[in-house]
């Protein structure tokens, strides 16, 4: 089970990547280490993982500081594209890059589905016997 976690996660990321206008997808851990990615060669996945963790960590902190309730997602809205950093369970951050003019309804729905799948996979891996070796 634990051995095939990585390919299963990559499959979820690839499925999300196939949604129109989704440019790149990665999964980072909350502490900034990379779990898996389907990013173009021009992006450094490890750096992006670290930045996403800082963005999410800071956003969560801001949300709690301002009493906004539980954190769900940070969006970086820029010139050509948006970057969505979505909490995926206790451990994960799903990073999705989409073109500015994307159909956000479809994107958010697909991100939500991917988050659910990843949360399940990570939780199952955490209870596998190797988890605390």
């Amino acid at each position, binding site marked *: 089970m*634990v051995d095939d*976690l*990585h390919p299963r*996660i990559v499959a979820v990321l690839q499925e999300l990547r196939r949604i129109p206008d989704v440019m790149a997808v990665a*999964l980072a*851990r*909350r*502490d*900034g*280490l990379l*779990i*898996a990615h389907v990013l173009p060669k021009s992006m450094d996945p*490890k*750096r992006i993982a*670290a*930045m996403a*963790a*800082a963005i999410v*960590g*800071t956003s969560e*902190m801001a949300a709690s500081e301002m009493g906004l309730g539980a954190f769900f997602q940070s969006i970086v809205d820029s010139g050509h594209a948006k970057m969505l950093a979505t909490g995926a369970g206790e*451990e*994960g951050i799903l990073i999705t890059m989409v073109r500015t003019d994307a159909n956000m309804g479809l994107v958010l729905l697909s991100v939500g589905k991917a988050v659910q799948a990843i949360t399940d*996979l*990570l939780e199952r*891996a*955490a209870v*596998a016997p*190797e*988890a*605390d*070796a």
Partner: protein
Amino acid sequence: MTGSGEGDRVRTGIQVLDERLKGGFPRPSTLLLFSDKPTEKRLLAENFAVQGASAGETTLYVDFFRAPTLARAELSRFGKYPADHLVMVDAISSQLMVDSSEAYRIKDIDDLRGICDVIVQAIQEQKPSRIVIDSMEFLADHFHKEAVLDQWKRIIDEAERVRGVTCFLFINWTYHERDLSAIRALSDFVVEFQSSMRGGILRNSMRISEMEEGGIRTNWIPYTFKDLVGVTVYFPRIMVTGPFNAGKSTVVRSLCEKSISIDRMGTTVAFDYGSVNITGIEAEIFGTPGQERFEFIFKIFAREVSGVLLVVDASRPEDFERARHMLELIGPRIPYVVLANKTDLAGALGPDAIARKMDLPEGTPVVPTVATENKGVRDALLILAEMIIGVR
């Protein structure tokens, strides 16, 4: 058993280890690559074989699981090597009734004595400096224990005669603790392997113990594998921390070829990040902000920390208390080295004075550095690496 000079050692190719092993494993010697679960221990054996062959040493590889063409293709992921320096004992072709161009072939896989005759013949004729038996559990699963142990000893004796270093791969499925201690006692070094999953990331590590009294015993050494590079020691996170303006971002920049700093108006507001790859060690370096108002950043990154580079401005003893506090934020029992930075400035304190003023535990390394001139920074990282893997 041991001697001096290059020819008496075979290098592992992992430099920090080779240094500690005075140049590599002594010739002859017997290694047991052991785990009680299937792990990636074959990686180390393959790395060891290709290191030998590419250095021009004759290496014998006994493979019970893969056809030689497949084995050779997989071995070439560890780097280029001259094919004739890697001699295979082929246990598969005869079973599949296919032709083989390998010099040594096992004809009858149900005949333990015959199998070991081929191995012994190959050892005698080739006089290899490295021998890999992949793996002993294959024999342990198919034959009686006493007979297997006898042949095990026989291979060790033959290898010793040609002064080879033999790697026995072994997963224990069936043997009892008493047999295991007998097997350990046949070995000079035991290398154990462990894989663990933490938050979706799989980590592999190994630990080397010399069986001799007072011999080497390392900590769990995390490692990674990359095509064509082979096995390297891998630290997923080295934290660079310390008080405001001490030179943390400069340290990260000088260690890493490519790095990023999220700085605004000269001070770090989020983090610094870069990766290093020196002398068989790969590490991800994370620098923290120094100012107290960004302390929440620690909570994000201070997990699975392999070690800490604590940077202090050697000319500002008034900040030392803060430095100690930052170390505590990262957590207890994590190896650390103090970088006495900016030693080029007038009034910079020496390492001893800093150790005293900071009230550091006996033996804590304090390394003088000038990060802007790239002085001492690498040494500090190497010292930290040795502390983490337990060879210092």
